[in-house]
């Protein structure tokens, strides 16, 4: 289905935030906001839930911890128990202390990289991806609110534009998608 996207541009983040608050209170659904830096407090206004990447990171950390523990038990205790300086490797429990540094490092390694890779994939930001911001100035000093007509079925385009005019926007644009 052909959809229409309306872009309202602002030159100040606080004006955009107030505008968004006003529009949402009038029942307008804001599809997205593009900004050159994170606008604090915009997420609850336009209904964006907090990310769960932190939980993912914790899971990756647990995977790292488990792998490191298993690996060190296997290398040092099970597969080839070395007797180093008269201190034999009998059990994981006895040698646990000297395995701690690498266990820690490996846990951090998995948590950090797992999360970073997940972040890039769910954002769809990967090398060579095309830029998706509606206007190149949104990475400089302009802030854009995006609306989809299909998400605001109760409203005609002129009604929405009339509402937008009272929000202090500087430019208006639209696109058929």
């Amino acid at each position, binding site marked *: 289905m052909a959809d229409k996207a309306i872009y309202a541009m602002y030159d100040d983040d*606080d*004006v955009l935030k*107030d505008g968004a608050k006003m529009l949402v209170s009038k029942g307008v659904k804001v599809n*997205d*906001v*593009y*900004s*050159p*830096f*994170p*606008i*604090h407090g915009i997420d609850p206004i*336009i209904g*964006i839930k*907090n990310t769960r*990447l*932190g939980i993912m990171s914790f899971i990756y950390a647990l995977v790292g911890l488990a792998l490191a523990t298993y*690996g060190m038990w296997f*290398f*040092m205790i099970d*597969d*080839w128990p*070395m007797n180093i300086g008269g201190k034999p490797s009998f059990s994981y429990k006895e040698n646990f202390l*000297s395995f701690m*540094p*690498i266990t*820690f*490092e*490996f846990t*951090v*390694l998995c*948590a*950090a*990289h797992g*999360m970073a890779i997940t972040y890039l994939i*769910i954002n769809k*930001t990967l*090398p*060579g*991806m*095309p*830029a*998706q*911001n*509606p*206007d190149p100035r*949104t*990475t*400089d*000093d302009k802030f854009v609110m995006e609306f989809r007509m299909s998400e605001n079925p109760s409203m005609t*385009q002129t009604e929405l*534009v009339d509402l937008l*005019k009272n*929000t*202090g926007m*500087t*430019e*208006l*644009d*639209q696109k058929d998608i």
Partner: protein
Amino acid sequence: MHKEAAIREPLILGHKTYHDITEDVCRPIEDKAPKTWYVLFAIALIIGLYGVGCILYLLGTGVGVWGLNKTIGWAWDITNFVWWVGIGHAGTLISAVLLLFRQKWRMAINRSAEAMTIFAVFMAGLFPLIHMGRLWLGYWVLPIPNHFGSLWVNFNSPLLWDVFAISTYLSVSLVFWYIGLIPDFATIRDRAKKPVAKKMYSILSFGWSGRAKHWNRFELVSLVLAGLATPLVFSVHSIVSFDFATSVIPGWHTTIFPPYFVAGAVFSGFAMVQTLMLVMRKAMGLEAYIHRKHVEYMNIVIMVTGSIVGTAYITELFISWYSGVEYEAYAFINRATGPYWWAYFAMMTCNVVSPQLMWFKKLRRSLIFTFIISIVVNIGMWFERYVIIVTSLHRDYLPSSWSMHFPTHIDIGVYVGTIGLFFVFFLLFARFFPVLALNEVKSILKSSGESYKNAPDTHRDDPTPTPVIETVAPVVEEKVEVKTKEPVKETKKAKLSEDQIKDKTAALISKLGGAGNAIDDLKQISGVGPVLEGKLNSIGICSFDQVSKMTKVEYDLLDELTASFPGRAERDDWAGKAKELMNKSNS
């Protein structure tokens, strides 16, 4: 929005707008590099290549070309390794620990400090690798099945801990750095005019678009990475210190090593950041973002960590006597009074005395003094490692094995070469990468920018939205109508029609009066440049007299006409400035 106490010095000086920040950071990347850059790059490259030559000679001939002997089996190689790892501690400390503590001043320096960290860790990692002798067998340090009947690496050894610590630290720092860089690359991408640059930055920016959801994730990822990197920073240098502390060599075998090494690392890392930053801010015109207050903050960190290091030296000395272990006591007496007394003396002066001078506010706010101290500290920290390593080794248990260490020219060449390579990397970074975290600096502009802080009236934080100016509205509507007919992808801006411009100009001039014969230099009004002056003149505003009559209504009219600096005239109070200038010329 985050509010900051008025008593705090602003972090961004001058009247900067979001666009100004972009301009200031991107200009050095987009313009041609200055001559000095080429000169510095050439010097660094020559020194670096000499170092590479020395390394190749070393690899071809063997570790014997270093000045090591039977007694002193570790000297410049490990000294340089620890020195570089130490320097590599500031970047992640600045971005991670200071992020957790919500220290906003980090934002101006974290990007380049992290770059410095990564390059320093490259240099550090080089030393153990070349010390292996056979560089191409470096992968033997990894636990991979091999042809020795799967003899695994020794996980009890601090040297293997080092392998894991340094490689984790390097890769996590790299990821942390790059995730912060992506939005800034996007800014450069969207400004780039040359096709090659556009293509390159487009690849580097990963298609970043700045959606609200992406920013939400970005902030969380930064926070979690900071949380992970913080213990990592501490663990890495603790593990480096275990290389020594877990041995039984008098002078190394001390439990104080981990905290003492970490403090020393932060100490030398911040000193290196100061050295680089003081030059960079000047060369790249970033004085408004990295200024005295930032330098002062870093100097305070240097002072605190320097004091920790000093306390550790003295504790070590005391314990060596108090422990009653003869060998231990001798190692320390020999350090201070033996043949290496000069190295010990250099270490004590540079690391214990010099940071104490930072107690004086005048000194810690002086840029030249800071620059000198930053270099002194790095020299001192190199000597610290040299003292720990060489003086502890050179008096063996058997007097017949006593020896001295004399570096060969290959020792020196490799070390100096790494400094050259480090600067090669850093200069390339400064040339092609955004040296300031653009998006982060923009986010503190309103809370810590000078113009916003000192003029609360113009603070655009009021809950009532500014109404759109009447005359713009019908045009916008027309636009929409036209566009509904043709579904072509098009981005046009609402612009005033010819007639409206004429009307508005007439209205503006009728209020301000004609210029008469008086033509003043409007550039004297702060905030007016040659371009803006041209625009004002074309409207018909040429004299201070006209400008001084301007009020809110005229400012708004003017904004619509020039459409280049909305709100600027009002914020900078042109009318007031013009009055002052008129009075000056009259008297």
